[in-house]
């Protein structure tokens, strides 16, 4: 039988309450301290027979570790109270609370546990952004087991006169380490799989870092964290990209100052072409200025000439994909093929409540090397929520892999959502 996700937490709490060291408990139940550490942090499930051994070693009923009954509630409620001292919870009456409202007590403990787990997840995420500690820990686990296997196996192979007791001990160690090796390899594969699937915790690219940094200030770059000190910008490449974005934002701000922009918006509405004409600025400056300012609900996507997305600010109901190529029907790509020509369409996203958005796209062409240099294209698409109306709607999607429009003529590959 496999046990609940918080069994490890209960084990750890009980061990700490007894003042017992992790290594001592591990030795008493015949596992390595590092494996126990994984169990205690709920990163390994624990089989019931091993849990029963731990319950004996910790002098606690098995059910307490499995279910976390009243004793667990008591400890949990005390921990919850200690976490919010300002609330001045009546700790001395905690027994009354459990007796009269066991369900509410359990809910409170569960919420406290979740809050701690979330805090831990945030900590892990911050650490991962800085050093990728999970990957490091998994590799460390595997390398430690490999080291032990290599050293122990060499002793057994090279030592002719090893006595029986040592030989038996080393055989046992080899067996344990081979188990650890298998588990470590499994954890590593699971981690890499998760990163490959783009789970929320797997912030992997410099562009992801920049977007997390911009998201933290709600894309109001004037209020963004200092680039050198932001926990979101872990990599040098991330900081370089953030600095470039901030520099272009400063440039846009100088060309379209906030006061003058507000007056122009009152006259023209959020029309980037009209703004570009009035301020005599490149159209893409007006796009960025409209999307990257306090309280703007506009989404913005920018790509280069290869169609690679350089900036992805989501709009309500529209999240540009983090992985894989985007939908080729986006007006962004239509504009890319028709430089310096405004493209406008009302687009709808798939799904029963598919968002309706007004998309305005424009592609700017530049020649930074003069006549002999390359031609560079940057296309941008501004997205604003659109009420239902009579205008023709262009049906688009996010990316083929997760798009449900089965009969789309632009489909590149089958969707994983269509079975």
């Amino acid at each position: 039988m496999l046990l609940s996700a918080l069994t490890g937490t209960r084990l750890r709490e009980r061990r700490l309450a007894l003042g017992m060291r992790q290594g001592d408990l591990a030795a008493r139940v015949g596992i390595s301290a590092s494996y126990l550490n994984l169990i205690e942090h709920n990163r390994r499930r624990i089989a019931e027979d091993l849990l029963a051994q731990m319950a004996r070693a910790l002098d606690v009923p098995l059910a307490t570790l499995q279910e976390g009954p009243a004793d667990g509630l008591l400890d949990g409620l005390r921990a919850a109270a200690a976490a919010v001292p300002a609330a001045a919870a009546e700790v001395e009456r905690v027994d009354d609370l459990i007796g009269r409202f066991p369900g509410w007590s359990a809910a409170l403990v569960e919420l406290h546990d979740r809050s701690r787990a979330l805090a831990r997840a945030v900590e892990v995420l911050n650490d991962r952004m800085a050093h990728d500690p999970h990957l490091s820990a998994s590799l460390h686990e595997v390398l430690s087991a490999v080291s032990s296997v290599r050293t122990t196996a060499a002793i057994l192979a090279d030592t002719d006169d090893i006595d029986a007791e040592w030989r038996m001990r080393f055989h046992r160690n080899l067996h344990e380490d081979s188990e650890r090796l298998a588990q470590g390899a499994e954890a590593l594969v699971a981690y890499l799989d998760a990163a490959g699937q783009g789970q929320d915790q797997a912030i992997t690219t410099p562009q992801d870092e920049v977007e997390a940094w911009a998201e933290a200030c709600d894309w109001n770059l004037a209020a963004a964290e200092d680039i050198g000190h932001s926990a979101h910008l872990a990599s040098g490449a991330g900081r370089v990209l953030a600095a470039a974005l901030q520099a272009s934002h400063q440039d846009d701000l100088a060309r379209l100052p906030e006061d003058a922009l507000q007056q122009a918006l009152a006259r023209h509405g959020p029309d980037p072409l009209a703004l570009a004409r009035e301020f005599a600025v490149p159209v893409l400056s007006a796009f960025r200025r409209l999307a990257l300012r306090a309280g703007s609900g506009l989404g913005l996507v920018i790509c280069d000439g290869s169609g690679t997305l350089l900036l992805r600010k989501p709009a309500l109901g529209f999240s540009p994909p983090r992985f894989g190529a985007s939908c080729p029907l986006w007006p962004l790509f239509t504009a890319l093929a028709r430089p310096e020509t405004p493209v406008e369409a009302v687009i709808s996203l798939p799904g029963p409540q598919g968002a309706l958005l007004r998309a305005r796209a424009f592609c700017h062409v530049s020649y930074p090397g003069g006549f002999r240099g390359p031609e560079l294209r940057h296309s941008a698409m501004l997205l604003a929520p659109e009420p239902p109306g009579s205008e023709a709607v262009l049906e688009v999607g996010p990316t083929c892999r997760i798009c449900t429009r089965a009969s789309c003529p632009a489909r590149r590959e089958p969707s994983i959502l269509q079975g």
Partner: protein
Amino acid sequence: MAGRVLLIEDEPNIAEAIRFILSREGCEVLVESDGAKALDRVAEARPDLVILDLMLPGMSGLEILGALRADSETRELKILMLTAKGQGRDREAAERAGVSAFMAKPFANAEMRAQVRALLEG
């Protein structure tokens, strides 16, 4: 080779194997698995050589190394840093902090014998 070696390593199977290898070479090998107790153990055992794992519970190998180098009693103590992280920043940090030698896991037993011999006899 002779000498007293204090092995600070939290992986019990690796510690056991190293203890076996060095004991057969004539060393007296003491083992400590808790980083937090390492400094007391060094003061108490007065070893000729410390083999120090980088990743330890309680206090990291780098913190222990820094504390040993800051103490006039142990400033010159031979310290062999042992870690699964054989590359990069940790290695540089250990070298900057004054480690005597560095060995990355997984290692060959002969390499361990040679390193310890060189440090004890050097």
